[in-house]
């Protein structure tokens, strides 16, 4: 049986697959549709953060500014459900500051009334995760023209382009180019959406959150241009997505150095053992 496999059965089976594919190959197909996305979508602008590269460390001053932008702007719509208030100690806030931030947070934690068992809210504790600004998804959609503001904890890791994407998206709002409308008259941005060439389908439901320079007043005196705020919040969201980045870089350098030495020693041992053998 196996004797016939090579010369006969295999080529017949092979021809079957090749024929099916040849027919598919020559099948005429509709010309690929050129869409507005194809032509007008833009890759994010370059963004350099202190945390980039194998030696990268977070710029804590910048993370604190970014947190301020999140707190004063984004937190009105976006949750940050994987981060707890006391995690802010990692970016340089003191215990007392964290306590105060939690205590004064605009949205309270869902809870129950201890006397009646009715749903209620209470002030945030340092150990709480950041509360969602909306009670549930339905409420979030109702407040946002049926769009859902995504949780921002992992946003820089869950988008192609990472922090650079967030930065570009925030300052990328513009009027729809006349050229686009001329070429794709059907692609006019609907009234409830906003044109943004960095967003995958060009029309995003989020209204421009950073509308003007000086929208926040930075505690450290940095000039709060739109670009500065966008960079700072992108840096902050890099930290929320990868809070262990510094540990990783530090461990990585130690491990690589250790392995370099060990591997060189292993190579010398190998050469030594084989010294008497041609191979």
């Amino acid at each position: 049986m196996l004797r016939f496999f090579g010369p006969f059965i295999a080529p017949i089976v092979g021809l079957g697959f090749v024929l099916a594919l040849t027919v598919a190959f020559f099948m005429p197909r509709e010309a690929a549709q050129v869409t507005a996305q194809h032509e007008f979508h833009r890759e994010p602008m370059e963004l350099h953060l202190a945390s980039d590269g194998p030696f990268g460390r977070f710029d804590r001053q910048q993370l604190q500014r970014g947190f301020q932008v999140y707190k004063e702007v984004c937190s009105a719509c976006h949750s940050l459900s994987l981060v707890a208030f006391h995690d802010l100690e990692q970016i340089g806030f003191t215990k007392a500051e964290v306590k105060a931030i939690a205590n004064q947070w605009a949205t309270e934690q869902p809870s129950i009334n201890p006397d009646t068992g009715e749903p209620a809210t209470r002030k945030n504790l340092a150990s709480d995760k950041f509360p969602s600004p909306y009670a549930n998804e339905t409420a979030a959609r109702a407040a946002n023209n049926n769009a859902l503001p995504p949780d921002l904890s992992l946003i820089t890791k869950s988008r192609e382009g990472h922090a650079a994407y967030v930065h570009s998206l925030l300052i990328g709002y513009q009027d729809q180019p006349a050229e686009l409308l001329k070429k794709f008259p059907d692609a006019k941005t609907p009234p409830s959406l906003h044109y943004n060439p960095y967003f995958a389908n060009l029309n995003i439901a989020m209204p421009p959150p950073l509308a003007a320079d000086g929208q926040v007043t930075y505690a450290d005196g940095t000039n709060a241009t739109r670009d500065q705020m966008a960079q700072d919040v992108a840096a902050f969201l890099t930290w929320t997505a990868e809070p262990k980045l510094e540990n990783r870089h530090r461990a990585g350098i130690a491990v690589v150095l250790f392995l370099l030495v060990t591997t060189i020693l292993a190579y010398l041992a190998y050469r030594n053992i084989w010294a008497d053998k041609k191979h």
Partner: protein
Amino acid sequence: MSFPWAEHYAPKHPFMRWMDEKLPLPRLVYNAVGAGYPVPRNLNYFWNFGVLAGAALGIQILTGIILAMHYAANAGVAFDSVEHIMRDVNSGWLLRYAHANGASFFFIVVYLHIFRGLFYGSYKAPREMVWLLGVVIFLLMMATAFMGYVLPWGQMSFWGAQVITGFFSAIPVVGEPIRVWLLGGFAPDNAALNRFFSLHYLLPFVIAAVIVLHIWALHIPGSNNPTGVEVKGPQDTVPFHPYYTAKDGFGLGVFLLCFSLLLFFAPNALGHPDNYIPANPLSTPAHIVPEWYFWPFYAILRAFTVNFLWVPAKLWGVVAMFAAIALLFFLPWIDRSPVRSANYRPMYKWFFWVLVADVILLGFIGKSPAEEPYVRIGQFAAAYYFAHFLIILPIISRIERPLALPNSITESVLHGEAEEAAPLGQQA
């Protein structure tokens, strides 16, 4: 089973002698990967990848067992439990990144190991069984990796599971009931996640068991070598230990270095960003792509776009994808050339490299969206893949005139120079 000149295990220490009488485990190790296993002296670095695959499995099992202590296989909390590992578990980020990238490295070394076997004809007699068991390991690895990718319950986890289990619905009549039975529901959900976790924990140990058989079967004829010429005498071999333990030690160092560079400095480079979005059955991602090591097979699946011979395109795709791997089982009988090493097969050598380029091209197509020109290129590349194994190989194994083989491994190593007669210390 070994060569007659293999060194014999002779324990000196009284405890080891006692042990050898009661349970000759050290003897087994000595004969398997110690001085008792004679190996061709001319193996090149491509022979490191078997040991490296074993190391990769070890890393996966070790990190996986600890991850399982913190992971919760429940659709409601799986995603958050992975983030809990990343944020709150001591060195959890290291375990998880090592496990995720370890899977990629496992496939990298196994692909190199497989192509090594293809180039040097390691699948041919008398090593057919070694090869068959290898293909079984490869299939088990793919199943394990697929189920592992579902566990974080991100968008790609969910939609990947949806697509892959959807293959079964291509089978006429019974396909859909089988799919529902396998998933425990109409779509991937808690039942599927739980059974995937159970099997994901089980299969690596099955892989380990098949690896034992793979090595056992290998030790009967002994290792192949770059000339493909069988071992003729003691001068052709060296004991595995210390010669190849030393060489594998160096190989392992290089492997761990590459692994560490990825793991510590670009741990998400091979992953898909969408898997950091929690699974959402109501929102289909723009492009559903599997992990990189499935791309070539995914491209073959999607290349079949027309119904042909009364068989629907979808069924063609699924059958072809499985056939693309299954045909490897028949390779020892498809390629009838008695010469093993491609170094002495002028035609095969050429086609081998075309196949390598073709598989890389298929990988690129599998990653790309299903649009032109990618679909057409994919159809061409997939057709070539089948043509290579099922049509070209049988033909060239008949018409090819192999080059003259060296008389022995030693001859090929020494190129006519004198055998190293001089004892150590007297050499120049």
